C-alpha cells in the first residue's frame, strides 16, 4: 500500500470519526451499559451493584407472573388491537380520499391535527373529556340516555379506551402513508379490471391490495414498533404502574416504574433488554412475512 493510500485511509477514518463517535457514545454505549446493568444487582443507584448476579434478574423477570407476563400480554393486546384498527380505518380513509374532491385539502389538513399534538397533551385532553364526574363525554352520553361510564377510572375499560385514543391519534398517519402508496399505483390495471366487469371489492382485493402490499407492510412495521413503545399517553392518563390494578401497565411502563419508582436498576435493565429483543423479534417476523408475501 502506498503512502498516499495509507494517508487517504486515515483521512477517511478521521472524517468518519465524529459520526462513529456519536453512534458509539449515544447508541452502542447505552446498549452495552444496559446489558451490563442487567446482570448486576444494582439497587438504589446505578453504581450500587455489588457484582454480577449470574442472570438472576432475567430469571426473576421471566418468573414474575404478577407484573412481567401480564405486562407482556397488555403490550401485545394494545399493539395488535390498536394497529389492526388503525390499518383498517387508515386504508378505508385512504381509499375515500384517493380521488380528488372538493374540500380535499381541508379534509387532509384536519386529518393531520391529532398527529401534531404531543401525546401528553392528548392524554390530558382525553382525561378531561372522559372524566367520569366532570367530563363532557358522560354529559353527552347522558343526553342520549346512556348511563355514565367510568372510562379511564375503570380497571376493565382503561386499556380499550386508551387503544381507541391511540387509534384516534395514529389512524391519520396510516391513512396518509397508504394514500401516498395508492398515489403511486398505475391506473391501467384497475381500469382494465373495470372493463372486464370486476366489482369494486374484486378490484380492491385483486388489483389494488397486491400493489399496495409493500407500502402496507412498511406502514404496519413502523406503526407496530411505535405502538409497542407507547409510554407517554399511558403514563399521563393512568400515572405510575399503569393504574391502581396495573391495568394499563405495558412493558415500557413496567420498566419505567422499576427504574424511577422502585430504583431496581438491574431488574429494570433486564426487562428492557427482553423488551428490546421482543421488538426486534416482531420487526423480523413482520419483514419476513412481507418478503414472503411479495415473493
Amino acid at each position: 500500500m502506498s503512502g498516499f493510500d495509507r494517508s487517504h485511509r486515515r483521512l477517511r477514518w478521521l472524517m468518519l470519526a465524529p459520526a462513529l463517535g456519536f453512534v458509539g457514545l449515544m447508541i452502542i454505549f447505552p446498549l452495552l451499559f444496559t446489558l451490563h446493568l442487567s446482570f448486576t444487582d444494582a439497587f438504589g443507584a446505578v453504581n450500587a451493584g455489588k457484582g454480577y448476579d449470574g442472570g438472576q434478574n432475567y430469571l426473576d423477570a421471566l418468573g414474575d407472573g404478577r407484573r412481567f407476563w401480564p405486562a407482556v400480554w397488555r403490550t401485545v393486546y394494545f399493539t395488535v388491537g390498536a394497529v389492526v384498527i388503525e390499518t383498517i380505518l387508515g386504508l378505508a380513509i385512504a381509499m375515500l380520499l384517493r380521488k380528488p374532491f372538493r374540500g380535499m385539502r381541508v379534509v387532509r389538513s384536519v386529518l393531520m391535527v391529532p398527529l401534531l399534538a404531543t401525546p401528553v397533551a392528548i392524554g390530558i385532553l382525553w382525561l378531561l373529556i372522559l372524566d367520569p364526574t366532570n367530563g363532557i363525554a358522560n354529559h353527552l352520553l347522558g343526553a342520549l340516555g346512556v348511563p355514565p361510564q367510568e372510562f379511564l377510572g375503570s380497571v376493565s375499560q382503561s386499556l380499550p379506551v386508551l387503544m381507541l385514543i391511540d387509534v384516534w391519534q395514529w389512524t391519520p398517519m396510516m391513512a396518509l402513508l397508504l394514500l401516498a402508496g395508492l398515489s403511486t399505483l398505475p391506473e391501467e390495471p384497475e381500469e382494465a379490471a373495470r372493463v372486464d366487469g370486476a366489482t369494486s371489492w374484486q378490484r380492491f382485493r385483486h388489483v389494488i391490495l397486491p400493489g399496495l402490499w409493500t407500502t402496507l407492510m412498511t406502514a404496519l412495521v413502523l406503526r407496530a414498533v411505535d405502538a409497542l413503545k407507547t409510554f407517554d399517553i399511558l403514563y399521563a392518563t393512568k400515572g405510575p404502574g399503569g393504574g391502581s390494578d396495573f391495568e394499563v401497565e405495558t412493558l415500557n411502563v413496567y420498566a419505567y416504574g422499576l427504574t424511577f419508582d422502585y430504583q431496581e436498576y438491574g431488574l429494570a435493565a433486564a426487562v428492557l433488554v427482553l423488551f428490546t429483543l421482543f421488538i426486534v423479534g416482531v420487526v423480523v417476523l413482520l419483514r419476513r412475512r412481507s418478503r414472503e408475501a411479495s415473493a
Partner: protein
Amino acid sequence: MSDIQLNRRAFGRLLAAGAGAAALSACGSRGTPGPDTPLRISAINHVWSQAVRQRLPEFEETIGRRVSMQLLTADQLASSYNVKLNASATDIDVMMVRALQEQLLFARNGWLADLTGLVEGDAAFDWADFQEAPRDRSITRGKVLSVPVVTERPALYYRKDLVSSPPATLDALREEAFRLTSRDLFGYVGRGQRSGAVTQWSSFLYSFGGDFTTADGGSGIGSPEAVAAYRFYGELLDRAGPPGATNMSLEQAMPIFAQGKAAFYIDADAIYSNFLDPTISTVREQVGFAPFPAGPAGSKPHNIPSWSVGINAFSLLRDDAWRFIQWISGPRMVTELQAAGIPGARASAWADPATLAAFPAELAESMRINAANGIGHDRPEVIQVGRARDIVGRPLVAGIIGQDVAPVAAEAHAEFADFLVRDNRQQEF
C-alpha cells in the same frame, strides 16, 4: 483531496488532541465555581417555593450570588434527582426532598450532605425548636440530612350547608356520607389511587388502632385493625364516592369537592386555599374545616414533614447552600411564612397565635388539634417506599371496587412481610 496528506504521527496527534479536549471539558464541570455561578435550588411547585422565590432578592443580596430556582412537580423532581445524582451532578445545590419518601434511599446512596454539625453548631438556628416528629424524620443513622420546611396533616373538609356540625367520629362520617349521597351529590370524595391513597389512608389506619408495621418490624397490614380500616375506607368510597375513584389522586379528587359535588373530603390541610379561591371553588362560602374524626382508637391523624431541604453531597457551593437553609428555615422566616399561610415545623411559630391568623379560624384550630395528636409518618418507613406503597395500597383498591378486602389484605400482608425482609437487608449501609 490529494492535497490533504495525513501521516501516522499527525493522525495520532489529532486523536490525542480530541481526547484531551473531551477530558478537559469533562473535568471543567468539577472545577471551583466562579462568583457568577448561581446557587441552584431544585424545588417542588408549591406555595412554599413560590413564597420563597418572591423573597430571593433579599437572600441574593446577603450572599452576593445569584440564585436559580427550578420548580417541578413531585414526580418530575424525583425523576430529576434519580437521573442527575446517579451521575454525581453538581448542578443542584439545595434539594427539596420528602423526608419520608426519599431520605433513607438518598442516605444509602450518599446523595445528601451531613448537616449535623451545621444545625447543632448554630445557636441562633435553634435546631431544638423544630417539632419532635419532623425533626426525628430528618435524622438518618444519627446524621441530620435535611431540615423540615413544610408540615402537613389531614383536614376534614365539609359542607356547612349540608350538615349542622362536622362528624366527630368516623362512624358518624360514614353515616352522614351515606345519607347525603344522591344522584347529584357524592357523600364523600378522597384519593383512591393504589399508591396515592396510602398516605391519606394512614390516618384511618392509625385511628382504627393499626400501623404499617408491628413493633418488631413485621407487616402490620394483615392485623384486624388494618383490615377494618381497609374495609371502612373502601366502603366509604365505593358507596358514597364518585365513579372512577381508583384513578383519583389529589388532582382528581380536590376539584370534585371544590365544584360542590361532594359533602365530605379528607386530604392535606395545605390545600385549603383551593376551596377559598373564587376562580376554582364554588363552595367558598359553604366549606367548613374540622379535625380528623375519631376511630375506635381515637383521632390519630398523621403530622408529617411533607417537604424538607437538604444539600446535594456533590454540590460545589455547600457553604452558600447552608446559608440558604439557615435563612429559609430560621425562626424569623418560618414565622413569616406561617403567618402567610404555609405551616412550618418550628414549635415557636406554632406557639405564636399571630402565625395562625392567616388561616380560617376553624382550620387553624383543626391543625392545632391534629398536630397535637399527630403521628410522624404517613407511609411505611422503608427504603423502597414506592414498592411498599404499591403493596399496601392493593387492598384499598379491592375495597373501593367492592371486592372482599380480607383475602386481598392477607395476600398483601404476606407480600409486605417478604418485602420488609428484603428492605431490611438493603438498610445495612
